[in-house]
Every structure is written in structure tokens, then in C-alpha cells.
């Protein structure tokens, strides 16, 4: 639509938009997170949802206690190997379109427990992460920033074409294999579809 005509119409009290814009406006302003926390980052997540930081301004105050009603998984805290299958299972149970924010050093890389034997070295070994937040723990402002980043990404998605939203695409995986408890480690140790080991710069 012509921008001049749109401006002219809005002066007369007529609001015009595209179906795509309306669709994304609704989607990005009602992203309901799944209510679960894994470690100390969850405290910051709770603080973000309360009055002082007020995640409600972004339409995300409705923390859903059921994965069937949630759009966003905030992985807030250390993912131990014992907990990882349950986190993947919760993600699988969420309906499309669904998004993942990995919050804090532990969720993105294992953090201070990276060299331990029982902590997953980043949830992106099993799940497709949309936004990573560094910090130990990240401040509520950082979570809000990640949330706004996710909103911008949702806004940039279109109804048709290669940049379709997740629920309109058939080529994206909605479910990911749940890792099994092995004798020494989780099996498989990572999902090659979501994660490949980083190549060291010096070995090339």
C-alpha cells in the first residue's frame, strides 16, 4: 500500500495494515512463556515478570504451567544431564509456533560447570535456540532485551515465501529426539541437526 495514502487515511481515522502485519502484531505481543525454571536464572526470570520490570508490557506475563499452552521456552538455568531429556520432552509437547530463549551462561554453554561430568554443555545440543543471553545470571533488562529481539524476529517473519513462520513450514522439525540415559553419558551426546562442534580457528 502506498505510504502517502496510508498516512492520508490515518488522518481521517481510517487505519490500514496488511494481513501479515496484523498477524505478526498479534503473535509477537502474546508470546506466552512456559513456566519452569532450572536454577538461579529462574529468580531473575521471576523478577522480570513482576511489577518492577513488568514483562506484561510485552504481552508475555502469562506464564503457562502447561507446555500445551506455551509459545516460548525460557531455559533459565543449569541443564543437568539428568534434566535434559525432560527439557527436550517439554519442548516437544509445545505447539507450533514455538521459540526458545537460552538464558544465562549455563543454558548457552554449561557456564562455570562446563568442565563437569553431569552438566549439559549448552541446551543447543538438543534444541534449536532462537536467542542466547549471556550473563551469570543475566539481569532482567537482558531478558527483556532478548524478548524484544525475539519480537523483532517474529515481526520479520512473513506468511508466504522462504521466511515463513515456523507453523507454516513443513521443513522445520517440531519434535526433537529425546536423549536416553546411557551407562556413561546421554545418548546421543548431541543432536547433529541443531548443533555441530565449533571448528577451532588454529587447526585450519
Amino acid at each position, binding site marked *: 500500500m502506498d505510504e502517502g495514502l496510508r498516512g492520508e487515511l490515518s488522518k481521517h481515522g481510517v487505519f490500514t495494515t496488511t494481513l501479515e502485519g496484523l498477524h505478526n502484531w498479534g503473535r509477537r505481543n502474546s508470546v506466552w512463556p512456559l513456566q519452569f525454571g532450572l536454577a538461579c536464572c529462574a529468580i531473575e526470570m521471576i523478577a522480570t515478570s513482576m511489577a518492577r520490570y513488568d514483562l506484561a508490557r510485552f504481552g508475555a506475563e502469562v506464564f503457562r504451567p502447561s507446555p500445551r499452552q506455551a509459545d516460548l521456552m525460557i531455559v533459565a538455568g543449569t541443564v543437568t544431564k539428568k534434566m535434559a531429556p525432560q527439557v527436550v520432552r517439554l519442548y516437544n509437547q509445545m505447539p507450533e509456533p514455538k521459540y526458545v530463549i537460552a538464558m544465562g551462561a549455563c543454558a548457552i554453554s554449561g557456564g562455570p560447570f562446563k568442565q563437569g*561430568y553431569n552438566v549439559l554443555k549448552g541446551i543447543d545440543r538438543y534444541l534449536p535456540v532462537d536467542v542466547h543471553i549471556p550473563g551469570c545470571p543475566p539481569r532482567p533488562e537482558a531478558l527483556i532485551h532478548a524478548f524484544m529481539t525475539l519480537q523483532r524476529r517474529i515481526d520479520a517473519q512473513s506468511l508466504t515465501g522462504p521466511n515463513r513462520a515456523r507453523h507454516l513450514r513443513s521443513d522445520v522439525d517440531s519434535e526433537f529426539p529425546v536423549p536416553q540415559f546411557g*551407562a*556413561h553419558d546421554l545418548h546421543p551426546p548431541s543432536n547433529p541437526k541443531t548443533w555441530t562442534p565449533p571448528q*577451532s*580457528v*588454529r587447526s585450519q
Partner: protein
Amino acid sequence: MIDTESIANELKTALPGCGIEFVANPSPSAQSSLLIQGTDLVAVAQWLKDHSEYRFDYLSNVTGVDHLEKTIKEKVKKTQVVDGEEQEVEETVEQTIPGYLEVVYHLYSMPLRHGPLILRARTGNRSNDVALPSLTPIWRSAEFQEREIFDLYGVTFDGHPDLRRLLMWDEFEDHPMRKDYVEPDDYEYEPTPHGPVLERANAHQTPPSTDAPSETQSD
């Protein structure tokens, strides 16, 4: 403060035949302990809990220690006949101490406000003789801590009401806090490692056949 050595002497007279050894700690903390034979652990614990003068009713901490097999070299002077003459010769004698797992208990008394009294018990070895009696029937607080030691060190506690792994999953087979534990090789290397870490990262990340020629040229 309680005198661990006098408790050891009292225990020896009260429970004759029990394996009780006083282990002094020469460090500034001077936290000496009692080394109890595994089979006598329950009797000693019950005596310490019931005795009116001590009343150790609170078991605050149970932890494990892993001792690997170690060899000690000692120099021993011997008289030997060398070329028809008697000479004093120094000889190194190697002594092998088999490995064992140790469980350490910290006892306090709430009504008498003293403690800690430190008990230790050792298993026979690190592989097949790893059983110790459980103290859960005496102090309920031992339950989860003994489960944790079973999980991380592999000590089995006879008489424990619910001996399952506490922290790791049930299918897990290793004991991560043992000194010979090999952790899964899933470390994610930083993009710019150097030195021995670079060697490990190369073996980990790039196939050696394609990487080998370029490695010899660089540096």
C-alpha cells in the same frame, strides 16, 4: 571441646574386641579422628549416641574419600657381607598399600553442645569389597548422604532402607568422584586453543587424514 583420644580409650574398654584406632592429626586444626573397623561401626555409633556423657545425637555430615593404590619407597639400612666384610648398605624397599574407600562421619551433640567427633571407616578395597554397614537406622540424617556416597564413590551400605543413586540417573554405571573416573569426552573447545589443548582439540574435531599435511606446514 571433646577429647577424641579419651573417647577412644573409653570405647576400647566398653566394647572390647572392637577395631578402634585413634588417628591423631598433627596439623594446626588438630581434628583427630577415630578409625573404626567396618563390622563394629554400628556398635560404636550406638554407644556414642546412647552414652549419657557424650550423647552424639546429630550426624551433620557423611562424606567419602577415595584412596588409590600407592607404593611407598622406604630406605632401610641393612648389614650385608660384601667381599668378606660386613658393611651397612642402604636398600630401598617398595611397599604397596592397596587402595580403599573411606567414609567419614561428623558427629555433634545438640543437648551437650559439643563436637565434632570424627569417625572413619574403610572398605576392604575399591572393587569388590566395598560394603559398609549403614548408619541410617541410628541417625536418619545419614540416609541421603549415604545414597550420595553410593552414587559418587560406589560404597554400598548394608541395611540402608533405600539405596539408590541420588544425583546421577539409575542407568549410570560410573562413580564420578573416584580418582580414576574418566569423564565423557564431550568437551567443547574454544575457537582459539593452543598448546596441549590445541592437540586435544585437533584430535577431537578435525579428521586426522585431511588435517595432517596442513599441520606439518604451519608453524
